[in-house]
């Protein structure tokens, strides 16, 4: 169009074309591929040929990017809290109350750098705490593992490690059943699309909503696959407390187990298989270990309670006859278990019983010959044909930092990126340095003392999660400054009034927030540094490629699309890119040469990344800069298909391109990572670590939730909350801040007071019993706090369970912050901070009891 220029960029929800005119973004559209781009794959199955549409899909959050870039909540200049004086009174107790004044970049950078130097000289570099939100914007150069780590590793800091919030049960549980530590216990998915299209008769989506969670980052790439499977007559069964959106489109049958009882349902299924002989005895005999012990538990030999369908019905509230019918259908058809939405993950794994659910999923799949044609754990989201030999890194491979201790850079990328130079790492940010789990930042600040096991994502070995840590680490200082990137934790962590209270104390003398929008935690900082979006700076990335603990994640996509992320517009207001901000700070800290590697711009880094990948094999830098994207050609037609775990089922050497198991974990390059090399119904790693741990015993068992229908507080708080990852926000990106997504009827409800309220979904009967009508404002509460939301009355959830997505972007206290109701909608104010089990340091946000009543101000 006249005067418009078409550029490229990418997001957590897909790559896009960006039409720009007169320095403004006109539109952001999904990419259509051209004739000249690499051919699409074709799969022949059941007499048909399947090939994907020649386009890239995007999520609604990506579609709404323009409203987020031009958001009324954008931070356009640096700010200082009005009553904060670094050389005088700091008035820390007024954080979140006293308000801000505009200051110059000069002043802001001077204050921050002076404080950093003072703290380093008085306490040492480890007294500076930093971490980013779960997701940052998309791009290998600008990502938190890249720009943030490069700066922080040079300046010195204590990192608040992220817990694997989407993987918990697989990480702390599943890993002990079958290894895959390099995938945090999640299943590999290679070539399972072809396998599924050819062989699968039934798919059981268990805690899995691929139409909402999009695998991860892959938008609606897998949607056509589910339609194809459906049209082939594959039966689709959904097990989820909520009648989720994938179920709405595809379910032939839906089960809603009472929250936290999924493992009881699984035990009831195993009971039917064992008593009716509906399982693969030969596979269990040769490919697994410890089945007899597990069988004894299932049949009641151990605790005197046979895990009959009737027993399971009592726990789950699913009729015993339907549990039997499900077991028989599963046990007599070639069934693929879509456990979680990615192949692994799933809300059921983020609960007090998450370990046991994940372990039961692997045990059940093993009983049905996991890895044989059409029988696998596969969520339909990964496993499309692709060429894994064409190297392009994911964001978790470290970008311009290539921190080999805290990213997957050491696997390959660091050598390519810094062949003749040094990557950036820091001994404090290593297992022998100092750490804080982000779930315990408030305790670290307020109580000053912590002990736990496992540093962040524990993927190096099965045993890594057993490692003990303490804060302060021996000889290291306590935290004096928090350099926070983004503001999400009140919306995304657990029992999050803790995070509010943490800010309102002089035990935290200095808080900086570098953020794009004024929301969430940003309102508690002393100094706010305005960052810009990835549409306002240069970057480079591949569609849905995070890599790291999800090797070859791009197999979610129908085409491997690598994009130049063009600087489409100048940064709004006085905002700057993260790289620019850190470069400016580096000048004041005497680190500029080191940080910028002698003056490199972001585009220089993009070019360096380009040349460190296989891109030059397919396109020149000049062409890439001009065209903006490259589609990686597929493997030659007729290349062998290597479905995940088929090698294992057939007792062969691994033939997939997976990163593990490492040779030292195998014997003669054979078997899984477990000690036995087999799937372990009785886990050898747990047996060695703590055989008497009743919450995570060597044999997977149904353990009653410590916050569920058996809890004493169930009388006062009789509603169980399921709080899945959100549909119309990616973590907190997309929610509020003037985004168009707020107008979506299933996201927020606009009330007469002009405020858009977060939704809680409640069954018709539960609503009627409380006099609640559609879209009434309600107070959702327990002893941890109160949240005001709008009620959506529905039959999509049974009585006794309520549904509210997590990840509200803002926090709006009606009174004193931390002690009054929040009307932004942070359900996580109410979720328990308690770890999943005494030895599993993950979040159990889906084990949460509340009461709801009509809200009247």
């Amino acid at each position: 169009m006249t005067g418009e220029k078409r550029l490229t960029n990418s997001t957590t929800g897909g790559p896009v074309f960006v039409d720009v005119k007169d320095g403004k973004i006109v539109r952001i559209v999904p990419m259509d591929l051209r004739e000249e781009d690499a051919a699409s794959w074709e799969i022949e199955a059941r007499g048909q040929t399947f090939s994907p549409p020649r386009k890239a899909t995007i999520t609604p959050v990506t579609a709404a990017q323009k409203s987020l870039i031009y958001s009324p909540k954008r931070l356009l200049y640096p700010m200082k809290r009005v009553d904060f004086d670094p050389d005088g009174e700091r008035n820390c107790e007024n954080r979140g109350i006293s308000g801000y004044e505009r200051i110059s970049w000069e002043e802001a950078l001077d204050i921050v750098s002076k404080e950093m130097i003072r703290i380093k000289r008085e306490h040492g570099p480890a007294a500076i705490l930093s971490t980013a939100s779960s997701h940052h914007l998309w791009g290998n150069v600008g990502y938190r593992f890249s720009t943030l780590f490069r700066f922080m590793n040079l300046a010195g800091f204590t990192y608040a490690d992220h817990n694997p919030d989407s993987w918990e049960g697989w990480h702390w549980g599943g890993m002990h059943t079958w290894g895959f530590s390099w995938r945090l216990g999640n299943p590999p998915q290679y070539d399972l699309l072809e396998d599924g299209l050819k062989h699968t008769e039934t798919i059981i989506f268990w805690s899995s909503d691929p139409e909402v969670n999009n695998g991860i980052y892959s938008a609606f790439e897998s949607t056509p696959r589910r339609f194809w499977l459906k049209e082939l007559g594959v039966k689709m069964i959904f097990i989820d407390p909520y009648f989720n959106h994938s179920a709405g489109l595809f379910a032939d049958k839906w089960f809603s187990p009472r929250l936290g009882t999924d493992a009881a349902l699984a035990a009831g299924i195993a009971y039917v298989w064992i008593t009716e002989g509906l399982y693969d005895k030969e596979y269990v005999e040769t490919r697994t270990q410890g089945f007899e012990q597990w069988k004894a538990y299932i049949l009641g030999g151990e605790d005197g309670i046979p895990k009959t369908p009737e027993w399971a019905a009592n726990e789950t509230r699913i009729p015993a006859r339907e549990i039997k019918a499900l077991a028989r259908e599963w046990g007599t058809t070639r069934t693929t278990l879509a456990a979680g939405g990615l192949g692994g993950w799933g809300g059921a794994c983020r609960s007090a019983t998450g370990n046991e659910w994940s372990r039961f999923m692997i045990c059940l799949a093993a009983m049905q010959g996991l890895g044989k044609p059409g029988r696998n754990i596969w969520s339909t989201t990964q496993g499309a044909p692709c060429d894994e030999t064409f190297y392009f890194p994911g964001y978790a491979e470290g970008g311009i930092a290539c921190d080999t201790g805290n990213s997957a850079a050491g696997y390959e990328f660091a050598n390519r990126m810094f062949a003749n130079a040094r990557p950036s790492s820091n001994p404090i940010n290593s297992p022998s340095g100092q750490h804080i789990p982000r779930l315990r930042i408030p305790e670290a600040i307020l109580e000053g003392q912590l002990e736990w096991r496992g540093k962040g994502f524990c993927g190096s070995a099965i045993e890594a999660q057993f490692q003990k840590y303490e804060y302060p680490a021996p000889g290291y200082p306590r935290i004096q400054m928090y350099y926070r990137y983004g503001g999400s934790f009140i919306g995304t962590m657990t029992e999050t009034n803790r995070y509010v209270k943490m800010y309102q104390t002089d035990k935290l003398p200095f808080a900086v927030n570098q953020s794009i929008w004024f929301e969430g935690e940003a309102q508690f900082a002393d100094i706010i540094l305005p960052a810009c979006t990835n549409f306002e700076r240069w970057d480079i990335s591949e569609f849905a490629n995070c890599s790291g603990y999800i090797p070859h994640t791009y197999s979610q996509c129908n085409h491997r699309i690598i994009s130049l992320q063009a600087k489409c517009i100048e940064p709004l207001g006085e905002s700057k890119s993260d790289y620019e901000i850190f470069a400016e700070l580096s000048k004041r800290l005497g680190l500029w040469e080191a940080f910028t590697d002698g003056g490199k711009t972001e585009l220089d880094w993009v070019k360096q990344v380009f040349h460190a990948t296989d891109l030059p094999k397919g396109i020149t830098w000049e062409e890439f800069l001009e065209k903006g994207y490259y589609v990686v050609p597929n493997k030659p037609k007729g290349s062998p298909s290597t479905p995940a775990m088929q090698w294992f089922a057939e007792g062969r050497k691994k033939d997939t391109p997976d990163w593990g198991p490492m040779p030292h974990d195998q014997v003669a390059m054979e078997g899984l990572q477990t000690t036995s090399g087999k799937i372990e119904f009785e886990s050898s790693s747990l047996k060695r670590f703590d055989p008497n741990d009743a919450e995570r015993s060597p044999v997977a068992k149904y353990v009653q939730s410590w916050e569920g229908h058996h809890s004493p507080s169930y009388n006062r708080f009789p509603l169980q909350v399921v709080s899945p990852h959100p549909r119309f926000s990616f973590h907190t990106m997309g929610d509020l801040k003037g985004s168009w997504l707020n107008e979506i009827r299933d996201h927020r409800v606009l009330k007469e007071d002009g405020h858009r309220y977060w939704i809680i979904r409640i069954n018709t009967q539960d609503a009627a019993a409380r006099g609640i009508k559609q879209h009434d404002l309600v107070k959702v509460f327990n002893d941890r706090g109160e949240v005001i939301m709008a009620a959506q009355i529905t039959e999509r959830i049974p009585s006794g369970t309520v549904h509210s997505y997590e990840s509200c972007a803002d926090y709006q206290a009606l009174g004193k912050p931390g002690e009054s109701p929040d009307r932004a909608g942070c359900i996580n104010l109410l979720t328990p901070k308690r770890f999943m089990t005494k030895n599993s340091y993950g979040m159990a946000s889906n084990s949460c009891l509340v009461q709801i009543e009509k809200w009247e101000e």
Partner: protein
Amino acid sequence: MKKVNLIIDVARCHDCNNCFISCKDEHWDNDHSPIAVSQPRHGHRWMDILNIERGKYPLQDVCYLPKPCMHCEDAPCIQASGDGAVYRREDGIVIIDPEKAAGREDLAASCPYGAIYWNEEKKLPQKCTMCAHLLDQGWEQPRCSHSCATGAMEFVLLEDAEMQQRVEAEGLEHFHPEYKTRPRVWYKNLFRFTKCHIAGSVAIDYGLECAVGAKVTITHQKSGEVWTTLANNYGNFKLDGFEKKSGKYRIDVELNGITKSCVFELTESINLGVIHL
């Protein structure tokens, strides 16, 4: 002359809202005169997504109906405008002229589908333009169908006779045909939104087993019309496409010679619960 048509399959829509958001992306803060001027940041739903839940737990279902301007052949807004403030292009697209229609709040009220929105700031009625400004520049389809990821929305340029063939072959319908405005927007599987279902479960052995294959017969008491189905392996059955408030029906359930029947009034989708044989 080929004309525009939009075919929406409600059975493939799961409310992702890509169409609703992409429409805003195209029209907020962009001036596409003379086709349209900028839409406000919030408040307008040029592509509105209606939703419905039918039946009762655990056999309920859901349906979403994306509803843009219907670009009617007999458009009430054109009639109401009188002076050409609203006009139809040769390709069938109905356009509100942003200059001539200034101040005409009455036009927003003229649409029986509620598809025209009042822009308070600009004092202007506004609606879906089928992205005519893009089509005129060579785009193959409007932003809504372009961003649809589930195949729920298909934009086609066809002669009216060709379109009529598709309508008949695929059973396409108009939403609210009683408005008699002859829309250019067509719906597939519309019964999922407008009609109701009869569902239930059948059990045997004192409720301990599902009544697999039980024969279910539904009889409309007044007309005597009969529908049959078999309970599936979970003992569940669902028959769809009934008129709401269509009076009394009898259900007969039979397995291995054991029968049960009852009469019920159908007002909206119903879950008859567990029928024990």
